[in-house]
C-alpha cells in the first residue's frame, strides 16, 4: 500500500523527467559535450585549416624550434585544479603578449590593420589595434573585432616569440601562425609581422639605444 502511494507521488517527477529525456536532442555524439574540442573544431571551419597549426607546432617541437611538448602542462577542464592552472597559464601568456607588444612597438606599428590573435588551445583572443604611441593591446577580448584580421596560433608559439627564440616571420614560414581576413588586411598584417624583429633583439636594441643615450648625456 505504502509503496503504491510513493509511486503515485513520484509519478509527476518521473513524467517530467521522462519528457525532458525524451525531448533530448537526437543529434548527439559523444564528446559534443566537451565544449573545448568543439570550440577548436569549429574554429577550423571558420578559419579553414586552422588545425594545421597544431601539427606545425608538434613538428616544430620535435625539431627543436619550439620547446619540447610537455604533457604535464596540458590543462584539462575536468582536472580538480583546473581553475588555478588555467589562471596561471593565462597570466603567463599575458606576460608573453606584453613582451611581444614591446617588440612590435619597436618596429613601428602605425599603419598595421587591426588584428586579433587567437590561441587554439585555450581559445584566448588578444586584440591589437594601431594607436598613437604604438599598439593598443586588449587581453581577454571577447572575440575578433568586426573587421579584424585573425591570426591563429597557440601558446607555445607565443612563448617562443616572447623569448626571442623565434621571429614572427619564421613562425609564419613554418605554419605556426596562419592569417585570415581580407586580402588587403592579411597582406598588411603579414608584412608588419614579418618586419618585427625577434623580441630579444628588439629588447637588446632598446637597451643599446638607452645606453647610447645615457652615454651621450653623460
Amino acid at each position, binding site marked *: 500500500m505504502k509503496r503504491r502511494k510513493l509511486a503515485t507521488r513520484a509519478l509527476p517527477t518521473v513524467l517530467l523527467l521522462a519528457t525532458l529525456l525524451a*525531448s533530448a536532442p*537526437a*543529434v548527439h555524439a559523444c*564528446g559534443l*559535450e566537451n565544449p573545448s574540442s*568543439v570550440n577548436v*573544431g569549429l574554429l577550423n571551419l*571558420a578559419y579553414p585549416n586552422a588545425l594545421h597549426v597544431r601539427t606545425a607546432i608538434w613538428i616544430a617541437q620535435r625539431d627543436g624550434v619550439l620547446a619540447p611538448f610537455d604533457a604535464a602542462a596540458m590543462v584539462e577542464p575536468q582536472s580538480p585544479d583546473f581553475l588555478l592552472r588555467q589562471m596561471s597559464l593565462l597570466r603567463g601568456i599575458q606576460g608573453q603578449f606584453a613582451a611581444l607588444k614591446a617588440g612590435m612597438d619597436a618596429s613601428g606599428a602605425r599603419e598595421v590593420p587591426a588584428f586579433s590573435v587567437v590561441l587554439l588551445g585555450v581559445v584566448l583572443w588578444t586584440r591589437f589595434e594601431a594607436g598613437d604611441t604604438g599598439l593598443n593591446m586588449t587581453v581577454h577580448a571577447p572575440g575578433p573585432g568586426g573587421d579584424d584580421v585573425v591570426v591563429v596560433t597557440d601558446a607555445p608559439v607565443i612563448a617562443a616569440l616572447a623569448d626571442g627564440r623565434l621571429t614572427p616571420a619564421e613562425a609564419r614560414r613554418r605554419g605556426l601562425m596562419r592569417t585570415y581576413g581580407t586580402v588587403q588586411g592579411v597582406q598588411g598584417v603579414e608584412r608588419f609581422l614579418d618586419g618585427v624583429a625577434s623580441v630579444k633583439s628588439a629588447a637588446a636594441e632598446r637597451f643599446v639605444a638607452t645606453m647610447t643615450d645615457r652615454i651621450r648625456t653623460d
Partner: protein
Amino acid sequence: MNKRRFLTMSIAAGLLLPAFGAHAQDAGAPDKAKLEKAFPAKPNFSPYAGRNFPTMPLFGDTHLHTGFSMDAGAFGARLTPRDAYKFARGEEITSNSGQPVKLSRPLDFLVVADHSDGMGFFPLLMSGDPTLLATPQGRQWYDLIRGGKGGEAALDIIRSFGQQKLPTGFPLPGTPAYRNAWGETIKAAEAYNEPGRFTAFIGFEWTSNTGGNNLHRNVIFRGNGTQAALVEPYTTLPPFGSDNPVDLWKYMAATQDKTGTEVLAIAHNGNMSNGRMFPMVEAFGKKIDREYAQNRARWEPLYEMTQTKGTGEAHPFLSPNDEFADFELWDKGNLDGSVPKTRDMLEFEYARSALKIGLRLEDVLGVNPYKFGMIGSSDAHTGLAAMEEDNFFGKTAPQEPSPERMTKVFFADPKTGVKVMDWEVGASGYAAVWATENTREAIFDAMKRRETYATTGPRMAVRFFGGWDFAAADASNRMPAAVGYAKGVPMGGDLAKAPNGKAPTFLVAALKDAIGANLDRIQVVKGWVDKDGRTQEKVYDVVWSGNRKPGADGKLPPVGNTVDVANATWTNTIGAPELITVWKDPQFDPKQRAFYYARVIEIPTPRWTAYDAKRFGVKPLPETRMVLQERAYTAPIWYTP
C-alpha cells in the same frame, strides 16, 4: 557435376598423383592430355577457374563520417565524401590537421555514412550561406563560431534541433539544402565506384539517440545513384523521422518499393545503449513479438561489433570464464555519459549475449530476431578509414596524430563521473566479406547471407564451415574452401535436424594478414539453450600454434609476448602464420538450438598508443593499454533441431 562426384574425383586425383610424381623424374612431365583423359570430370587444370564460390575476402569500412556529419564538422573535419573515397582507394591525401596520410593497402569497399540529421550543415553555414545568415539564429551561430565559441553554438544548435526551432535554410528533409547534401553524397559514391576494383556504396547513418542511449544504424543501398536519389535519408525527429527502429524498418520497406533496389541496416555500439540494443521483452512501449523479430531479422542481417568506441563481443561479467572477454571495453555508460552503466544492462548490449537471447526468443516467437553476421568498422569522424595500429588517425579531427592524444580527455560528464580518455579510443575495425566479386551487388548479397566476419584492423583470411561430415583429413586438403562449400555451409549459414547420432563438425582455417602478425589460436564459441530453457555458452580452443597443451584447468597457456613496448616492435617468432582444423562439438544435443562462431586471435602486438609514445616521446598515463592481441570474429552458423 555434383559435389559427391567432384569429391571422389579429387580424392582419386590425390591418391593417384603421387604415382605420377614418383615417375615424373624418369618419365618427364605428365602429359596434360593423359591427365584429362584419366579424369575427364576434372574441368580445368586450374582449380579456381570456373569456381563460383568466393576465393578472396574483401575488406572495407561500412561506417565512415566526413565533414558532412554535424558532429564531425563540429570537431573540425573538413574532408568531404570524395576525399574519403579517394583515401580508401589507396591515394595519399592531406588530413584535417594538415598531415599527409595513406593506407598501407587500399580497402576494397567503403560506405560514407554521414548522419542523416542535419546532413551538410556546418559546411553550409561556415561557407556563408546567405539564407542561413539572413536569419538571426544562423547569424548568431556563425558569429559565435568565428569568435571561438563554437561549443556554445553547438549546444544551442542541438537544443534548437531537439525543440525543432530551426532557422530557414537548415538542412531538413525536403529542403534544397538537404537535397544538395544528399545529392553530393550520392555523386561522390558514383564518381568513385569502380566495379571489379573498388566499391563505393551509398548510405547514411540513422542516429537514434534518445536520452543519450545509442540505437544507431547505418543504412546501405545496394543500387546506384539514380535509385538512391528517389528517396532522402531517414532522420530521427518527427514528422520526417523517428527514433524507433521499427519506424526505420518501415522507411526501408517503403524505400525498396520506391527505388526498386534493396537496403539493409547495421546497428552498432550496443555497449552504449544502456541495455536497449537487444531487447528481450519490450521496446518503445511495445512487446517484442513475432513481427518485431521478423522485421529485425529481415532488415538487420549484420551487427557492427568492433569499432573505435569499443569492442562489443563479450564482457567479463557475462563471460567470467573467457580470458579474452576483456578486450577494448567501453562499459562506463551511455553515449553521452549522462547515465552510468549498471550490470543489469550488459546482457542486452553484447553480441554473444544477443545471439543467445535470439535463440531463446526463437523458442518463444518462432523467429530469431538476433540472427546476425559480424562485421567491424571504424565510425571515424575524420573522413579517414585509417584503423591500423601504426597508422591510426583517431576518431575525430583533434585526435589525429599529435602528442596530445596520449593524455587528453575525450569526454567527461562531471555530474555522473563518466570519463573517457583519448587513449581509450580503439584503432578498430574493418568488415571482411566473402563476396564473389568486388561489386555493389556481390558485396551486398554476401552481407545479406551473412558470409562476413569482423576484424579489429588486420586483414586475416578466415574460413568457417559447418557440416555433418567433415573429417580430420579435410584439414590437410589442398583446397579447404572447396571442401568447405562442398560438404557444409559457410559462416552465416544454417544446419538443421542432425542426422541420427551425428554431431556438427566444423572446418575452420585462418591465414594471418600478409604483412601482419602470426596467429595465437582459433576458438569456437558455442551458445545454446539447455533443457531448462536457459542459455549457456562455452569457448573451445580448437587449434593453436606451437605444441602447447591445455593445463589442468582446461585452459591453454598464453602464446607468449615478443612486444618491445618502448620501441613499438614485435617479431613473428611465436605463433603460426596459418591454422586449420576440423572440430566436432563434444557436447552436442540434437534437441537444443545452438550457434557456433569462430574467434581468431593474433599474438600480442603494439597498440597505437605504443607507436605514439615512441614517435612523440610522450609518456603514457599509468593506466594506458600499450599492447593488444588483435582478433577476428566470424558470423555464426546456427543449428536448429
